[in-house]
């Protein structure tokens, strides 16, 4: 069993477990945020399952079209919708100069990915993550200005920003592939991403309680 397979399988297991857990939370209290988070985890884990299965059964990545990427685009779309749902009208009007850091960091990365890979997929996924990053940076500073339980929204935004940052690190590292062993930092970042994805659930629970 290769490191890649173990890494992917772990990510699939963790996101599926988080999805089941969120589904149970939605079943218990019917909050829409939990449903959207369930959809995020479900589509992410489905994409990961397809990818892992492809490597496990055929020992190579898809040759014509990456179906898993569609599932990952869907998952980020659900995450973006969740971020929008959790924001208040006041938060949407709030402006902070730090939000400009998101396109400054992400746009050069996007150009790099387009040079190394598929144009359409990278445009969509980077566009989605940039908008999500923009919302999260704004939400993070807005929540910092609030008092009491409203401040707990910072946990959610921190978790989302961690996921986006790790995703970008991962995509950048995939452009400079070293090896399929643990000497490749790609796998370490992917392990961190698995942890960050799982940490999103307790972070959102804190936010929903706010």
């Amino acid at each position, binding site marked *: 069993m290769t490191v890649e397979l173990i890494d992917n399988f772990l990510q699939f297991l963790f996101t599926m477990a988080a999805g089941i857990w969120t589904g149970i939370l939605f*079943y218990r*209290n*019917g*909050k*829409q*945020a939990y449903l959207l988070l369930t*959809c995020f985890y*479900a*589509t992410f884990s*489905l*994409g990961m*399952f*397809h990818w892992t*299965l*492809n490597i496990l*059964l*055929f020992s190579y990545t*898809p*040759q*014509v*079209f*990456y*179906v*898993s990427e*569609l*599932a990952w*685009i*869907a*998952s980020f*779309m*659900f995450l*973006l*919708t969740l971020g*929008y*749902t*959790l924001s*208040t009208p006041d938060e949407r009007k709030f402006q902070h100069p730090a939000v400009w850091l998101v396109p400054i960091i992400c746009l050069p990365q996007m150009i790099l990915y387009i040079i190394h890979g598929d144009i359409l997929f990278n445009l969509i996924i980077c566009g989605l993550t940039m908008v999500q990053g923009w919302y999260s940076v704004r939400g993070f500073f807005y929540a910092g200005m609030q008092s009491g339980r409203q401040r707990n929204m910072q946990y959610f935004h921190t978790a989302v920003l961690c996921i986006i940052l790790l995703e970008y690190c991962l995509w950048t590292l995939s452009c400079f592939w070293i090896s399929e062993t643990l000497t490749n930092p790609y796998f370490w970042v992917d392990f961190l991403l698995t942890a960050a994805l799982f940490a999103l659930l307790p972070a959102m629970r804190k936010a*929903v309680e706010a």
Partner: protein
Amino acid sequence: MTYIENIFVCIAAPLLVATISMGKKYYSIFMFCIAGMGTCLLSAYINSFFAGVYNADLINATTQIAPVVEEIMKLLPLLFYLLVLEPKPGEIKNAMIIVAAGFATFENICCLTQSGAEQLSFLLIRGFGTGAMHIVCGAIAGYGLMYVWQRSWLKVPGTFGLLCASITYHAVYNLLIAHGSTSRYIAYGLPILTLAAGMTAHRMMKALPHYERGDSSLRSE
């Protein structure tokens, strides 16, 4: 060579006559069934076209091209229904499942004409496996659309998300089938298990008091 358009005409003709005879009440059921078969016919052409464009072999075509084309095609009649006729939420789910059933039926008929009908056991497994897979994909989209089309801000991301989910599910099924051996039997059982799990979850959700509430604002809670 299989003349699938001739098969389509042969199957759609009595259904069309039945539609006219049965009256307005049953129009939608027959029309969605014919639409499902029609999308299956068109999918076959589009699949062949893309397989030719990308120079894909049989495994790549069935695992990477067919799920995308077929799920998009299945959604098109429903999108037309949603945008033009603005149906009630309950009608969306039924329409999608009938389209999926029509699609699966026509696909099975084409499979029968190509590979013969001698082995009943294989046809039973294939019929229930592939048939159930199309119904599961239809149910993912149908039940999901029933929910997301009630919320204007969720329509676009929700529809796209559901389409991607059904494509990936279909691709996982085709991947297992394409691999053969034991994976094939796992694939045939997968949709039945998913259907059973989905139906159980649906019954459990229905019993909850907040199921029909549809709360849209988190902050107000």
